[in-house]
């Protein structure tokens, strides 16, 4: 793994506006985000020779390369499992560049979830065969599937709704500092949280991420090339994917220990190949499709012991100035839900020193992809 450690860097980030509804197509949004990221990096589109995105990305490499006038591509990759794929798109590019398969890589995600159809409303997509064990009983939406683990975590460890509120509040407070966030200037209070409607008990409205239209992209090059780019390089220090033994996506109920999910597997590899430990992390961008994923991830990535993920959130630990400032652009809960790609770009901004909720002197950032599904993670440093 010495070949990957700090061998590549993110040198450009770009995004479209985020909104419940954007008029342009996903393809157009993807093109805008990629061009913005290349412009940020100061790299011409025809120098791009690698692309990576999610299997759920409907704007494919052929369309992107053709529309943007990219050069010959020598590497392209797609990562599965929805939000679990975010960090792995960067990791795949880093690996390709570090091993000489390409020189300039772009990762992106474009999604019209805000104005598009809600997946759970489409009966046909409710019925793939793996769902035969869950969906007939009305376990229909991701919120229902994750709420099952959240309830068990509460039962075993005394995790409370106040702990989940701490997560929602930290994300909302940071979004209130970020003019690009959907929840900018929309504060959250404990009363609003506790009185909000249930989605799937024990998860309420504010435990759920936003539904957003938008696109984001980032540019990855070798560390050597990065030194000549226009921006401070943000190095890919370590990267990992995680699909634990006997895992079952979203409903990780059938292994020995359902509360140790994919985060634990990714974390072991991530730290093993890093010069850093959890104590060295200045700021974290942790995948937050649901607040309940944060305690599970804090445990999985080793910021606290098993069962202490809820208690970790107490005393402002996730706020600016706290033990682990979290999701400093507002995250999926309050900035935008674009399958976690905004967590990557915010990690880059923190290490450039340009976040709207800047952690002073931030030099290291953990970014994670979706917990509860086969996942991925990045350790970024400057």
């Amino acid at each position, binding site marked *: 793994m010495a070949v990957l450690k700090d061998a590549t860097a993110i040198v450009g980030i770009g995004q479209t506006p985020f909104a419940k509804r954007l008029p342009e197509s996903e393809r157009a949004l993807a093109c805008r985000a990629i061009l913005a990221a290349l412009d940020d990096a100061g790299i011409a589109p025809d120098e791009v020779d690698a692309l990576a995105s999610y299997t759920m990305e409907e704007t494919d490499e052929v369309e992107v390369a053709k529309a943007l006038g990219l050069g010959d591509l020598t590497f392209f990759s797609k990562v599965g499992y929805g939000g679990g794929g975010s960090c792995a798109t960067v990791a795949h590019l880093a690996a390709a560049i570090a091993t000489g398969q390409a020189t300039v890589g772009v990762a992106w995600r474009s999604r019209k979830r805000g104005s598009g159809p809600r997946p759970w409303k489409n009966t046909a997509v409710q019925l793939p065969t793996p769902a035969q064990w869950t969906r007939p009983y*009305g*376990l*229909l939406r991701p*919120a229902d599937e994750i709420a*099952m683990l959240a309830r068990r975590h509460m039962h075993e460890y005394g995790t409370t709704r106040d702990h989940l509120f701490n997560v929602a509040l930290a994300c909302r407070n940071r979004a209130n500092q970020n003019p690009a966030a959907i929840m900018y200037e929309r504060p959250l209070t404990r009363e609003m949280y506790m009185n909000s*409607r249930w989605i799937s008990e024990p998860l309420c409205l504010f435990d759920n991420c936003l539904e957003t239209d938008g696109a984001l992209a980032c540019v990855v090059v070798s560390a050597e090339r990065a030194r000549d780019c226009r921006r401070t390089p943000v190095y890919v220090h370590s990267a990992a994917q995680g699909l634990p033994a006997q895992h079952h996506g979203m409903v990780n109920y*059938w292994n020995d220990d359902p509360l140790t999910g994919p985060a634990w597997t990714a974390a072991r590899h991530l730290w093993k190949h890093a010069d850093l430990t959890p104590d060295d992390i200045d700021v974290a961008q942790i995948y937050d499709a649901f607040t309940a994923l944060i305690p599970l991830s804090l445990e999985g990535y080793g910021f606290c012991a098993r069962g202490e993920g809820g208690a970790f959130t107490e005393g402002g630990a996730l706020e600016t100035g706290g033990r682990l400032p979290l999701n400093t652009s507002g995250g999926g809960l309050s900035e935008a839900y674009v399958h976690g790609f905004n967590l990557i770009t915010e990690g880059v901004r923190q290490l450039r020193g340009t976040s709207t909720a800047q952690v002073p002197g931030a030099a290291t950032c953990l970014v994670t992809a979706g917990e509860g599904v086969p996942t991925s993670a990045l350790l970024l440093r400057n």
Partner: protein
Amino acid sequence: MLTPVVDDDGAPFWEYAARGELRIQACADCGELRFPPRPCCPHCRSFATEWRRVAGRGRVWSYVRPHPPLLPDYAEQAPYHVVLVELTDAPRIRLVGNLVSGPDARLDSVPAERIRIGARVQVVFTSTGLPQWVLERP
């Protein structure tokens, strides 16, 4: 309501359930149970399988109460209980189901205050062959 879309591996489970039997796939060589069903034993890699009848008793491992927005058939009965039941005679084999007052009862037929993690439950079968769960001590 959604009905199970069955694959080759899962079909025997549903065929037994339609006859009122709860059976779990087991390895015919090493004997280990596995769920969900799959073609190969993850313990010894044997492809020889059998379907072992289990007692149909368990405990609630966790549960959720979905509220709308939901598919219309489910919204009409919401909030209801979806339970994850750990089988008494097969630790780590857990089945998703509903806690109901009896076979073919509505999904919301058990009051919220009656459910707790650890509660003992017994399997019942709907007329369409779906395993469901009732409290041992209602």
